[in-house]
């Protein structure tokens, strides 16, 4: 995908899809409760099974969404990983914007005024 220079935004295209395939495939597997449990039981082994790159492994280990995106993660798939930790899109929105969850929610409410 050619660069479009939209502030704070990456359009998830061919480069990201190719780079992120292993990470997104792992996240896709979290549609199964059994797989979510297997991840929680032995994260290292689970990530190894999907062949995550070192960058992806580090981002997952750190629970760092921006790093996961930089490693080719797609947010709809990352949301399945976040769900394992009981985190929703407002939690990950807060993390990505460096706000508290309350501040992030207040920003959303303010957008309606």
């Amino acid at each position, binding site marked *: *995908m050619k660069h*479009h220079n*939209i*502030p*704070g*935004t*990456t*359009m*998830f*295209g*061919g480069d990201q*899809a190719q780079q992120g*395939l292993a990470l*997104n*495939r792992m*996240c*896709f597997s*979290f*549609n*199964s*409760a059994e797989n*979510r449990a297997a991840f929680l039981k032995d994260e290292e082994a689970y990530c190894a099974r999907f062949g995550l790159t070192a960058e992806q492994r580090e981002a997952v280990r750190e629970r760092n*969404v*921006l790093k996961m*995106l930089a490693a080719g993660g*797609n*947010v*709809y*798939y*990352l*949301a*399945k990983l*976040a*769900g394992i930790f*009981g985190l*929703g*899109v*407002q939690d*990950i*929105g807060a993390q*990505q*914007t460096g706000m508290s969850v309350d501040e*992030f929610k207040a*920003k*959303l*409410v303010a*957008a*309606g005024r």
Partner: protein
Amino acid sequence: MARIIGGLGTTHVPAIGKAIAEHKENDPYWKPFFGGFDYVHEWLGREKPDVAVVFYNDHGLNFFLDKLPTFAVGAANEYRNEDEGWGLPVSKTAAGIPKLSWHLIERLVEDEFDITMCQDMLVDHAVTIPMALMWPGKAAWPVRIVPISINTVQHPLPSLARCLKLGRSIGRAIESYDEDLKVLVVGTGGLSHQLDGPRAGFINKEFDQLCMDELVRDPEALTRFTIPQFVELAGAQGVEFLNWMAMRGALTGKVTEAHRNYHIPISNTAAATVLLGNESRPRQQAGTAKVSRIPEDASAG
């Protein structure tokens, strides 16, 4: 002959499914959104559609990024939902109408839409939540469905113009279907929102209003936006509006806005519900029916 009675656009945020499961419809946070369906329920109760053709985007339930169709049409007897990984209760199953599905598929391919045909198709919250919003508390939904998935996830995405044309082709196909059915067309997702990146939480009220206004009076005008421009104005996931464009395209008659509800925020999203009436044009004479099958804009299609 089948008749298109109207179109509905609605947000499909997963959190809505959780709110329904937890009976929070009347909570102060949720009421401004759910209340927007009161009129829709009244209208559906009066109009009683037999079929819903639902344009939506899959979020990693039926499709994965390794094999991702731009347009996929369901042709199944039933459409199950399954665990989507983010804690939503699994929805009830929607009934299909494969004979109509195959009719739509045949006409789409005649119109040069190279679609994917799905005899097995799981449907995610982008189908099941709008169904639950339209027909709450029902043991079984009172319509059969044709789900049509549009890729809004992995770029390059189809253009707004292409999705409008897809809808037009579907609209013509429905109206040439030889069974007396009342058909509702649904487009799900949007409006402005962004989940990922430093711009997460982006919402654009002014642009949403413009989209809803032009959707009714001049959807063609919205095709001036390229996909990158649309992402910039509506947010990375605001491009789900492509489903609304297809829905609008399927309304072949005189289109009027019957109802609109818009509320910020639901979860990270500017939530909208728009109901459009479709007053059918007079039937073609039998002698000209064949001609009407050729799309007016085939040369540009």
